[in-house]
Structures are given as structure tokens and as C-alpha cells.
């Protein structure tokens, strides 16, 4: 039964962290290059601009769900199952989500990189 719970936690982590990554990426593209903004406006203004972005708040909420799902997952199964399984799947789902929702140009190079890293993470867990 714990194994079933663990895979349920993995599915929740993958879904929530993919949604979180996409929302945070969209938020930061709307805010602009943090380094340049900090030099021009100062750190408090940049932090305020980030915190007022609705996509940032939604992204953080999704990440919080992923984090608590990870805590549950780690209490039910080994870190060697939960972290590599969720991370490797997230690389693939993020590539799909970035293409669909962020309109990133996910060319062969990026697909190969995502699949190599996902495969590598699985091998690390074996």
C-alpha cells in the first residue's frame, strides 16, 4: 500500500512542479532580467515587482503542493525512488509544457538533452 502512496506522491510532484515551473518561468520573463533590473531600480523594487506578479504567486502555490507531496513521498519511500522518478519525469513533462504554454523553441538539441538527463537520473537510481 505504501508503494501505491509513493507513486501517487510522485504523480502529484510531477504535475505540480511542471505547473509551477511553467508559471514561474512565465512570471520571470514578464518581470525581465533580474540582474539588469537590480542595477537600474535596486533590489527592493525587483523583489516587489516579482511578488506582485500573479503568475509568480500561482507558481509558488504549485511548488508548495509539489514540496509537501515530496515530504509525504519521502516519508513513505526511499529518496532513491521518489527524487529520481519525479525528477526524470519532470524533465520530459517540462519540455512538453514549455513548448505548449511558453512557446519555447524546443528543438532536437533540447529534446535530446531532456531525454539524456531523464535517462541518466533513472540510471543513478538503479
Amino acid at each position, binding site marked *: 500500500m505504501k508503494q501505491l502512496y509513493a507513486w501517487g506522491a510522485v504523480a502529484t510532484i510531477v504535475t505540480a512542479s511542471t505547473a509551477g515551473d511553467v508559471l514561474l518561468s512565465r512570471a520571470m520573463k514578464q*518581470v525581465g*532580467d533580474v540582474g*539588469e533590473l537590480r542595477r*537600474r531600480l535596486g533590489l527592493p523594487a525587483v523583489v516587489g515587482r516579482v511578488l506582485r506578479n500573479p503568475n509568480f504567486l500561482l507558481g509558488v502555490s504549485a511548488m508548495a503542493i509539489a514540496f509537501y507531496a515530496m515530504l*509525504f513521498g519521502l*516519508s513513505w519511500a526511499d529518496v532513491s525512488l521518489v527524487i529520481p522518478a519525479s525528477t526524470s519525469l519532470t*524533465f520530459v513533462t517540462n519540455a512538453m509544457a514549455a513548448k505548449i504554454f511558453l512557446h519555447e523553441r524546443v528543438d532536437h538539441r*533540447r529534446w535530446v538533452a531532456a531525454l*539524456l*538527463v531523464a535517462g541518466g537520473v533513472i540510471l543513478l537510481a538503479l
Partner: protein
Amino acid sequence: MTLRKYLVLAGVSIFAVTGDSLVSAGMKRIGSISLRHLPDIILAVFHPEVTLGILFLLAFFACYMTALSWADLTYVLPATSVSFILLTLVAKFVLHEAVSLTRWLGVLLISIGVGVVTQGPALTHRPRHTESSDCLTASTARMEP
């Protein structure tokens, strides 16, 4: 890509490894948490190792958000998977754990993946709705690798 940007990507990797390791160690000490005792998962964040892990994860988050402000998500994620390589090297040379041939093969695949993605441009899509025109100009300049 400037040295500062590579340092931000390195920060993402190093802080993530440290934070995940500390949270994992803390959760192992706390033990299994039942769904019938949900408040226990809230209280878990006050365990010293989990708290320290969360502080490192906050530093990871700051670096990650900074990287996402000037690079694509599909660039940042594979580029920062150096953390898995670091974790294996720490396991082998600091903790003196036995690292199997399969795990070294995993490290090799990740290394190739990182090499492949970092050869390409960091940003491929110019966002339409930035909050300042200066940022838009800057993002155009960042299209080059």
C-alpha cells in the same frame, strides 16, 4: 553567457543538492507520516535539518528565479542537472560510498545532456509582455548563446 550567469546556474545546482539532502535526512529521522495525522507534516518543517534544508532550498529558489529571468525553462533545467553529477562525486570521494558502473553511466548521460543543451542559445522565445521596454531590448540581445 557571462561568468555571473554561469555562477547563478552553479548556485541552482549546489543549493538544490544541499537542500534536498538535508530535507531527506530530516524526514528519515522523523519517520513515516500517516495521512490521518496531517498536522505532523506541517510540524516537520520545524525539525532542525528540515529547517536548514529549507533555507538552502530558498537560496536555490532565488538563483532559479534569476536564471529563469534570462533563459528558457528548457535550457535552465538540463543545464542545472549538474547537481546529480555533484551528488555522485560527493558520494564517491567525500562519503567514500561504492558507486556502481550503472551510476557512472547515468553521470555520463547527464554530462552529455548538459553539454548538448549549453551549446545552444539560452533564450529562444522573446516574451511579448515584459514590464519594461528596456527588458525587451535586453532579451533581444540575449538571444545569442
